[in-house]
């Protein structure tokens, strides 16, 4: 390609690329979402079909989305921030990026423990993190709570996912909230001492290691278990609801908040209210085999088959508040 051709081509390219950034205020709701496309698009499509409200969304990891939102400030076109973890929403609210939403419908449909005490964000589905065990080598009577996995019985038998994953960070944060930092540190130290192998990069590999006999017990989010056994129902692993005699199963949420400078805050609130109602709840949770946040709504049949459990009543916001402490704790005890 000759240089003489290159210059105008470049110029044209940049012009076209730049001009596309100029436009009018639109009526479309804009969502920044860390929940991936296949889990949200069907919901948005349904909402558009029912109400005529169009929704535009951008997916990315929560960290970059929050930084972008923060930098955009009052000029941001985003109305809603959606994440797959309470800690991220807590962090966004902490930075002042979310606004309080007062809604009777949301207060009625979403339990208090699953939303911000100041109503800046709401959980729309529940992600439970509990014990998974080998039915070949473990009797369920041997299992009890998260702390017990650090005991002698599980020496060299425990598999964990990496401490880099936010699900483990919020689990440890909740342990800190429940037991205080010294006791929580002792528990996690016990886990690390019991590890059968280096922590895994994801829950599925962890369950496959239990199946293969590398270890006997582990901690997973239930929907990973659901996905795996949906494909291979014969696998000799089962879920055990942790800490039913105590606090209950650790739960996190996938949720959303209305941004502080949302150009269409009223429309965003309407969407939230719609999302908290039974039909949308069934769909939102069902797409990923999660539990609906609205207690009046039943989970998917596959999920119901795992039985009822008592969730921890602690507010999920604490996971965010204590997350940095949890990460430091895990660094201290050498949980990679």
């Amino acid at each position: 390609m000759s240089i003489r051709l290159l210059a105008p081509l470049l110029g044209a390219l940049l012009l076209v690329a730049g001009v596309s950034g100029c436009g009018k205020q639109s009526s479309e709701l804009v969502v920044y979402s860390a929940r991936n496309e296949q889990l949200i698009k069907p919901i948005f499509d349904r909402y558009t079909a029912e109400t005529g409200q169009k929704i535009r969304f951008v997916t990315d990891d929560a960290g970059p989305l929050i930084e972008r939102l923060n930098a955009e400030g009052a000029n941001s076109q985003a109305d809603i921030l959606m994440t797959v973890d309470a800690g991220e929403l807590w962090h966004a609210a902490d930075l002042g990026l979310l606004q309080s939403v007062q809604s009777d419908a949301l207060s009625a449909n979403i339990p208090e423990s699953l939303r911000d005490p100041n109503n800046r964000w709401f959980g729309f589905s529940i992600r439970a993190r509990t014990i998974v065990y080998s039915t070949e080598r473990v009797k369920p009577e041997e299992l009890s709570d998260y702390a017990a996995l650090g005991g002698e019985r599980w020496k060299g038998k425990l598999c964990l996912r990496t401490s880099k994953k936010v699900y483990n960070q919020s689990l440890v944060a909740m342990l800190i909230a429940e037991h205080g930092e010294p006791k929580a540190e002792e528990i996690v130290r016990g886990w690390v001492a019991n590890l059968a192998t280096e922590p895994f990069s994801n829950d599925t590999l962890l369950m496959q290691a239990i199946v293969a006999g590398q270890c006997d017990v582990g901690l997973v989010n239930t929907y990973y278990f659901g996905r795996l056994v949906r494909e291979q129902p014969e696998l000799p692993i089962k879920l055990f609801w942790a800490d039913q005699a105590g606090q209950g199963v650790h739960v996190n949420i996938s949720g959303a908040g209305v941004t502080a400078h949302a150009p269409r805050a009223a429309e965003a609130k309407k969407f939230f209210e719609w999302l908290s109602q039974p039909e949308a709840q069934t769909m939102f949770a069902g797409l990923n085999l999660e539990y609906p946040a609205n207690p009046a709504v039943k989970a998917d049949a596959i999920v119901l088959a795992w039985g009822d459990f008592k969730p921890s009543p602690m507010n999920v916001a604490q996971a965010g508040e204590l997350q940095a402490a949890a990460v430091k704790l895990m660094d201290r005890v050498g949980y990679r």
Partner: protein
Amino acid sequence: MTADSIQSETRRGWRSPLSVVLGILLCLPALVPLVVIVHATISPEADVWAHLARYVLPEVTINTIKLLIGVGLLSSVVGTALAWLTSMCEFPGRRFFDWALLLPLAIPTYVLAFVAVGFLDYSGPLQTWLRELTGTSQWVPRIRSTGGVIVVLSLALYPYVYLLARTAFLTQGRRALEAAQTLGFGRAAATWKVALPMARPWIAAGVALVCMETLADFGAVSVFNYNTFTTAIYRAWFGMFSISAALELAGVLLVFVIAAFALERSSRAGARFTSARDMSRETTRLQLTPAMRWVAFISAGLVLALAFALPLLQLLIWSLKNASDIDSRYWGFIARSLMLAGSAVVVIVAASLLLAYLERRRSSASMKALVRLATLGYAVPGTVLAVGIVVPLVMLNNYLQGLLRTWFGAGAPVLLLQGTLLAVLIAYLARFLTVGFNPVESGLQRITRSIDEAAASLGVVGTQLIRKVHVPLLRTSLATAATLVFVDVMKEMPITLITRPPGWDTLAVRVWEMTSEGEWERAALPAVAIVLVGLIPAAMLTRRGAHVA
């Protein structure tokens, strides 16, 4: 004309302030994130930093150094040896391997890592099969270990060295080697003493790319749960919600990189690497002994199988399992991937060429330092760089929006620079400038001053000189740069994610959509598409290279 006047003739055009301004503008996108990082490093967050220094830094520093040395050495040996074999020797399948050995470039590092761990870990098919057969798989080395990470990263990254070393061998001509042999050196000695040293800037440029990729890698080391500087950066940011601590860590990382670069540069300061200008490629290839021919064949085959064929097979199997994910939207993903990668190639290769010339012509130290700095972005973890470029862009956008409001009042149009293709391209320029620049800069070293002077004496100067003399001589290097940029952009995730306009989903974005919730097997389909589309430039490159080869 005197020699001096020819010199000044050939330099004319590069002295103009316009070209300097242009050079600075091209470097700007890459410099801005570095400024953001350095700025954060000046005001450290004391308590987080104390924690990191005590519990995190010792481990990640050692791990990072181990990786750099291991991956740097292994990929340079594999890449250079294979390039030597395919470009200088004759062995069965040479013509096939010549281009096929580039293919692993199209497989994203994190994908190769995931396939390798899935296949070779305790619960993977290999060890399961061994246990069924022999009752134990204890003796199999652990894949999730330092050695495992090094091998996988090297298999994924060696093509950078291969491609650049191949360019060097193809352009250095054989006369020097023949001269060495007439001076009594044996063939092996001639290789060591002449051909390799002559190829050094290319090999160094390739290894530099590999090392920077290794430093910036997050996806692959995460699959191994191997702690490096990059994982520490993300942990400080996402885990402890401390972006300032994350940026400080990135600052320390940059010091690493600058030190390594300075070392490599100073060790070859003053050397010139022009070719013997013997482009006649029809001269004899080195004839290997029959045994060596098969050794060459098997080594090339093994690398290709491990780095490309087997992973691709696994991806295809997974893709077939999730074939129902294919829909008409895939044409859109492919088209957008192609468009972004294609535009990025045009922008980045043009910028690289310009900067390489500025550096060559204006030997001022400040211009050199500017270009050096601008090519550091490649070593910064993708998401950090993405945010480092988007946040300043957003600030610029806010400023312009403010101006519009004061001019037009409430009816002012809404500006959204950060969600435009322009933003995407600027961010790509920041990230991949090095990838384009390194091959072009190395290529320019082959062009002697005497070529310029001869051309000038015939009245060919300025841009004419570039167009009529240099570009043809640089053809292989430019094609190399274009290939690397194209394939890298195809695989790029964090920048594309944060800067893309709504709806601009590419194949790489598709991979993210699947992997973000751990659905790795469903990610195989877009990953395969990336590989297949990535084959296009590899094929084009070999056709181009054929002129020279």
